[in-house]
């Protein structure tokens, strides 16, 4: 009798756990559940709205910055690729940046030789208020592309043309290699985020570091830390 009761309780527990598990799995498909998983960590994450009209910078569910977009496009390079093949990008989903944008916007300081340090007592202490005039860093880019763990690339640019998946000369080379029967492997498709203001792209470039999560098809933030909000 005791054994039967134990088996019944065990069966109930298993069924309950199964139902709860199925519920959790189903709930993971909605943007809030995906964002909740990101918000449990202290890292920044980016959210692209499901209407493709904004990109939001968030941490812990709090919106820190928001950038208006002119739209989001899907670009794929390949013969015979039509719009039907491009519309396969499901949403919502989370990508992680695997390779940051090219870092040619960073200033590089590389002394060729180091001289021994001398403790010069006569050397004046730095004076307050007299600012050094550092070499201005190279301008931040208004267009860049990162690779993600989804197999897709993510481009940020003021237009689709500016975010060409392949450069002009490389397209020529690829074309000729294809003509002579030696095609290069197909390039990954690209999701192009078109910023309304190029300054916004410049301002965001440092956020696309390896490991940064990008939630595609997210909802409006539940709370905002923007000034005046």
């Amino acid at each position, binding site marked *: 009798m005791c054994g039967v009761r134990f088996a019944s309780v065990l069966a109930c527990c298993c069924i309950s756990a199964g139902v709860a598990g199925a519920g959790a799995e189903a*709930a993971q498909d909605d943007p809030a559940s995906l964002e909740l998983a990101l918000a449990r960590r202290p*890292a920044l994450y980016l959210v692209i709205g499901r209407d493709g009209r904004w990109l939001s910078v968030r941490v*812990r569910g709090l919106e820190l910055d928001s950038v208006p977009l002119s739209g989001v496009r899907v670009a794929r390079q*390949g013969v015979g690729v039509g719009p039907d093949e491009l519309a396969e990008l499901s*949403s919502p989903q989370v990508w992680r940046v695997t390779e940051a944008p090219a870092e040619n916007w960073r200033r590089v300081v*590389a002394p060729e030789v180091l001289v021994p340090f001398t403790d010069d007592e006569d050397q004046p202490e730095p004076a*307050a208020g007299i*600012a050094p005039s550092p070499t201005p860093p190279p301008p931040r880019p208004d267009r860049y592309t990162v690779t993600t763990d989804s197999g897709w690339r993510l481009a940020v640019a003021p237009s689709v043309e500016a975010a060409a998946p392949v450069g002009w000369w490389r397209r020529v080379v690829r074309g000729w290699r294809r003509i002579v029967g030696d095609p290069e492997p197909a390039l990954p498709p690209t999701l192009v985020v078109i910023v309304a203001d190029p300054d916004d792209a410049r301002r965001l470039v440092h956020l696309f570091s390896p490991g940064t999560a990008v939630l595609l098809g997210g909802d409006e933030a539940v709370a905002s830390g923007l000034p005046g909000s």
Partner: protein
Amino acid sequence: MIEATREIDASPEIGGSARRTWILAAIGAAVVVVSVILIGFFAGNPVAVATWSPPEGTAPDPNAVGRLLQQNPKGLVVIIDTARGRLRVVRDGVVLRDAACSAGSGTILREPGDRVWIFDTPLGERRVMFKQRNPVWTKPDWAFVEEGTLPPADPADRRDDVSLGDYSLSLGDGYLIHGTLFQTLLGQPVTHGCIRLGDEDLEYVWRTVRVGTRVLLY
């Protein structure tokens, strides 16, 4: 005399013919080059573009939305916009202070040898670990390498008790919110990763912010 005259007369004709040949050859070469480029360009895999229009997704899970709200920082929080060079002290959504600050320059420093430093400000959520009055900076190796000198062996040579200003708040991993001697550069990304504030703003932040307060950097 007559033969010499003929030679002189003939030379312009030969020169003109050679020039025409060269011009034709140049045009031919240009046509070939342009054709190669155009054929290659158009044969290069063409780009297809479509508007991203995801289908209507699943309705938000109300439980997830509720738990998302619970993740939001409550009470006092410091928000730092590293690109614009602004620091805001916010309590429950109300901005108490909005100050100019300087964040990491993003500069890459390469030592002759192997070591490389990147002067970025860490992003995401941090907490104030501890606070100090009259902080003393123990200059790390990069501070000397940047100046073109070898790091000194004597620890006393690393001591700097003026550069950090009157107060500092530690964000962990050696990153601080501190003062600066160069207040005219506030708002510009010129630091080695720390956050610099002007004297009055620094004193306000030091007095207002408690140890454990969340600092959100983006």
